[in-house]
């Protein structure tokens, strides 16, 4: 069996867990709204066309909400996925790579998504 030494194994901390556990309930609420909007709002049920989407983004709070959704869902999913990978005992080098890759993915997709929200809200 694998050695578990008396020194704690690095890689997961209170703060990451707290982020995951706090973003969870936020996501449940925001994702439910997101889904209802996409399938229930509008004449035909949901945002069915480009103009529906643009119209939807006119109210100031919609881009804000979608922005929060974007950032929290990226954080929640990447921390969660990292947890799944940690269950499979990655090597230290592998974990280091994942840390950088996931940070880059999170920052990159946040920037890209926020840009997209600003573009749509601006039209």
């Amino acid at each position, binding site marked *: 069996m694998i050695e578990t030494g008396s020194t704690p194994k690095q890689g997961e901390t209170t703060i990451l867990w707290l982020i995951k556990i706090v973003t969870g309930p936020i996501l449940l609420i925001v994702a439910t709204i997101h889904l209802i909007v996409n399938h229930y709002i509008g004449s035909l049920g949901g945002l069915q066309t480009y103009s529906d989407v643009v119209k939807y983004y006119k109210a100031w709070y919609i881009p804000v909400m979608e922005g929060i959704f974007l950032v929290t*869902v990226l954080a929640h999913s990447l921390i969660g996925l990292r947890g799944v990978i940690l269950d499979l005992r990655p090597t230290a080098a592998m974990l280091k790579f994942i840390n950088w890759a996931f940070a880059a993915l999170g920052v990159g*997709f946040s920037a890209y998504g926020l840009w997209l929200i600003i573009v749509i809200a601006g039209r």
Partner: protein
Amino acid sequence: MNAQSNFIVRAARWFDPRGRSLSTWGFMINRLTALGLTFYLFLHLITLGQLAQGPDAYDNFLKLTESPLYKIGELAVVAAVFLHGLNGVRIVITSFGIAVPRQREIFISAMVLGLIAIIIFGLRMFTA
């Protein structure tokens, strides 16, 4: 023993319900939906890039979504969101030491609630 097995064999153990109780199903559902939703999230973000290219590109893309196959996929996403989210509520509550002895009942309630939400959305998507 298990230390030597490769990661696929080890990961497969998460999805072996033999000799385990109901709450392992909670764990399996959570893990499967987590992986599925993460995959979908990035796919979704990439395809939304069409929005930036103007009305024609986006509306053409949306035409694809009218096929029933796509709708089934979309319902799967909706289902995953509700199952993962409601099951997640149980995990959040119990994580703070609340209602741990009742976690089984909370799990069943969450799944029933999730199923109702899935049916409502399903009806809407396939009848609208």
